[in-house]
């Protein structure tokens, strides 16, 4: 009996320590406002979420570089209309992807805090459809040039 209560006491103190630890996490005002509610997830999940965000950002930067390269360095390859269309499409994709990468990071972080299922990535269909359209445009331009 005495042993049981002692054990229960020990469990209680462990829980209290856990609670006081979660209370003492230093959180900035931005994090408090945007990531309210829930409990701190495993740090490794937060770091993985950050890396996924960075991978999307680098994808956006690559699209941005592609858009600039098409506009600036293909003066004698494409006609002005094709050049501008391609570069505008690439730049639009870069903008959409970097914006929604931020939103997705926030959504995933909130889901992790609330132990909810992760949201579906809307970015994936966006990127694949955009990439397919740009490639189709390139193929049709090159084929038309062969015909003429």
């Amino acid at each position: 009996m005495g042993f049981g209560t002692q054990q229960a006491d020990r469990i209680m103190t462990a829980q209290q320590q856990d609670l006081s630890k979660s209370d003492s996490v230093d959180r900035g005002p931005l994090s408090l406002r945007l990531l309210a509610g829930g409990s701190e997830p495993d740090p490794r999940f937060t770091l993985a979420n950050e890396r996924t965000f960075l991978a999307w950002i680098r994808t956006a930067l690559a699209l941005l570089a592609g858009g600039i390269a098409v506009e600036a360095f293909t003066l004698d390859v494409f006609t002005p209309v094709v050049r501008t269309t391609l570069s505008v499409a690439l730049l639009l994709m870069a903008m959409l992807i970097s914006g929604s990468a931020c939103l997705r990071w926030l959504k995933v972080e909130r889901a992790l805090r609330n132990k909810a299922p992760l949201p579906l990535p809307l970015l994936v269909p966006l990127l694949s459809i955009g990439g397919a359209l740009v490639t189709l445009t390139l193929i049709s331009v090159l084929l038309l040039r062969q015909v003429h």
Partner: protein
Amino acid sequence: MTRRRPDVPPLQAPHDDAGLQPERTSLAWGRTLLVLWVMACVFLRWMQSEGWLGALLVVLSVFAALYIWMTQRRRYRRSAHAIHTGRLRADVASVLFTGVVVACLAAVSLWAVLGRL
């Protein structure tokens, strides 16, 4: 066999995560930093035809790259410490800053391309 002076303590990793998550995250930021430098060079080349808009793009990307560079050490130390304690404050400021800067770079480039029409 390793030779080590007895008075020097052995080097120790600041955390015990076998998945090396702090290192991987820090390297991911480093790759982003590198891509931002490359973008700054591309924009530098574009400055010849775009003028001050190109200069604005160069300054923006160099600024973002410098911000990541300055915060790299602090970021690694913080995440290693978090693996140790089991609690990490999500780096909202850095993530939002990087996302917004890249979106701005794309928007300004779009403005420059469309403005030429």
